[in-house]
């Protein structure tokens, strides 16, 4: 990403001598530019800017769709602070993110190395990408069937091995790990491709030198690959962690937050507050908090992993 932006920049700079041709027209192409960005501007204002402001406003109100929102100040936020279901939702979500991102990232790095060194065909990359192109809903239903307690093939294999069957979606302790696993399966190929692109940007001569020095593959991996991959890895982590925090489809199709509260992730909780209980003010306050958390997570990750710097220069 960073390299791309750098390469592209020179073309964007105004070429010397060019402005003079337009003489006194210092506003440049403003008129025609306004025409070109007009549709996008409508979309931006109506569906991004206004809703963002309105969402923040609604978070300070009590609003049940019917009637008008009533201003109640910080009351939603103070209520959230002592709302057990909110803290439960946060705990469940964080547990999901940790499992999902942990496994997904490690597997994806492994797959990316394999794509880079061993299986170089586009065909294999394509096959591994397949689950990502299929809808969340479809993936969820497929695994809901395969992990079924009675008839699912996975439990069939488990009991064939002489182990007790597992209620993957039906037990409190398994629900979140199961949902996390399903999404690891869906995303691992995609994440691997992103990391693979990062691996390709590491110049070959670095490896040649390491090879000449007699560095072992393990040493090469930790001392060359990982440090040089860091900027890409940081970006991948920011994107996947933010996506992971917003898990919804899989939960909605399989457990709907249950059993009890075991898989009620934050977005599910927001959805139920808004559309189940028509409590739009409270739901908006919850999504403001989610928004702040995501911004903080992104900021900390970029800071911590120095995602916008490269060691290659």
């Amino acid at each position, binding site marked *: *990403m960073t390299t*791309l932006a750098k390469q*592209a920049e020179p*073309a*964007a700079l*105004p070429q010397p001598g060019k402005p003079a041709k337009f003489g006194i027209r210092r*506003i*440049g*192409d403003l008129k*025609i*530019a*306004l025409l*070109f960005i007009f*549709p*996008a501007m409508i979309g*931006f204002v109506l*569906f*991004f800017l206004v809703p*963002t402001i*309105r*969402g923040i406003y609604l978070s300070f109100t009590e609003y049940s769709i019917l009637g008008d929102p009533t201003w109640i100040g910080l009351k939603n936020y103070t209520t959230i602070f002592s709302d057990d279901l909110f803290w439960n939702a946060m705990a469940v979500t964080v547990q999901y993110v940790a499992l999902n991102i942990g496994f997904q990232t490690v597997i994806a790095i492994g797959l990316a190395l*394999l794509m880079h060194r*061993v*299986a170089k065909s*586009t065909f294999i*990359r394509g096959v*591994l990408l*397949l*689950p990502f*192109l*299929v*809808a969340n*809903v*479809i993936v969820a*239903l*497929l695994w809901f*069937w*395969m992990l*079924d307690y009675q*008839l699912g*093939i996975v439990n*069939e294999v488990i009991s*064939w091995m002489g182990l007790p069957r597992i209620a993957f979606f039906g037990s409190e302790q398994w629900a979140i790990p199961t949902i996390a696993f399903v999404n690891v*399966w869906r995303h691992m*190929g*995609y994440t691997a*491709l*992103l990391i693979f*692109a990062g691996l*390709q940007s590491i110049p*070959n001569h670095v490896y040649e030198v390491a090879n000449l020095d007699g560095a072992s593959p393990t040493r090469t991996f930790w001392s060359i690959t990982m440090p040089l991959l860091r900027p890409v890895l940081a970006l991948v982590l920011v994107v996947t962690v933010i996506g992971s925090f*917003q898990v919804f489809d899989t939960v*909605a*199709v399989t457990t709907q937050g249950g059993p009890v509260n075991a898989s009620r992730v934050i977005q599910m909780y*927001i*959805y139920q507050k808004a559309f189940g209980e028509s409590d739009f003010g409270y*739901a908006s306050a919850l*999504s403001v908090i*989610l928004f702040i958390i*995501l911004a903080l997570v992104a900021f900390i990750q970029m800071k911590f992993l120095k995602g916008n710097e490269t060691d290659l220069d």
Partner: protein
Amino acid sequence: MSTSTNSRHSRESATAVVGSPQSRRPRTKPFNWRRAGAWILVVTAVVVTVAPFLWMLRTALSSNHSLASNAGNLLPADFSWGAFQRVFGLQSPEQAIAEGGSGADINFWLYLRNSIIFATMTTAGQVFFSAMAAYAFSRLRWPGRNKVFAIFLATMMVPPIFTALPNFLMIKNLGLLNTFAGLALPFMFMTPFAIFFLRQFFLSMSREVEEAAMLDGAKHLRIFFQIVIPNAAAPLATLALLTFIGQWNEYFWPLLVGQDESVRVLTVGLGVFKSQSPQGAPDWSGLMAATLVAALPVLILFIAFGKKVVNSIGFSGIK
């Protein structure tokens, strides 16, 4: 720019493999355990990825009542086209119930049509309008250009759930709930990602032809339609493909504003289909047949243009 590098890389990878020192090494050794182990991992990953899809097909071709007694059998249990017939509404309700279906009408064809309308509308609008904006952000010079672009980009940070609630209220106030307009509007004008993606390409395109056209007195609209768009056909197609797949799979927004039968898309319909099962055992064969057919358009697109998608994912980076 990057696509060409990428595709060139994959085309030349055969020669590159022979030439690079890392890969020459194994050739000189008779048998490389490390390499064999690596290939076992690759094969495992491919099997883990593909097997569930085969299981989906196997279940869809089974008759629902036989699934219980043949749970561990790898071949379709009591082979039958019944599940697909149920999905396409070719069975009478009585027959469907007899075969384990719910007997309720699921209107698969209608959902399919709705998904096609929704995904096509949003993709066409989003790609076209984003291309226009990307042109203004890359090829035109105007005061405040970079600031406006930065603000556009910043909205990439806003989580969809955050704007979904107010957007729902707006669509509701406009009386557009359960209409295609309501479904499509928030996606139709732009996404920050699409503009960012296309801007990168437009920036890297040669300005020479364009400047020649400018001297000829060609107006910006003509340059855009006759020079920029044809020259950027490849990235536009890639973006359109990615957008279409994404929209085809969209669940949350259609769940909010498109609950009505007349505009219900496949993803939402599948969720309903699942919860419609009668007391006790769900119609697994029917459900798997439905998911398979719902995934089919994406699979076909992928088989046709897979290479483009695979190669585009590296540089598109953020999505």
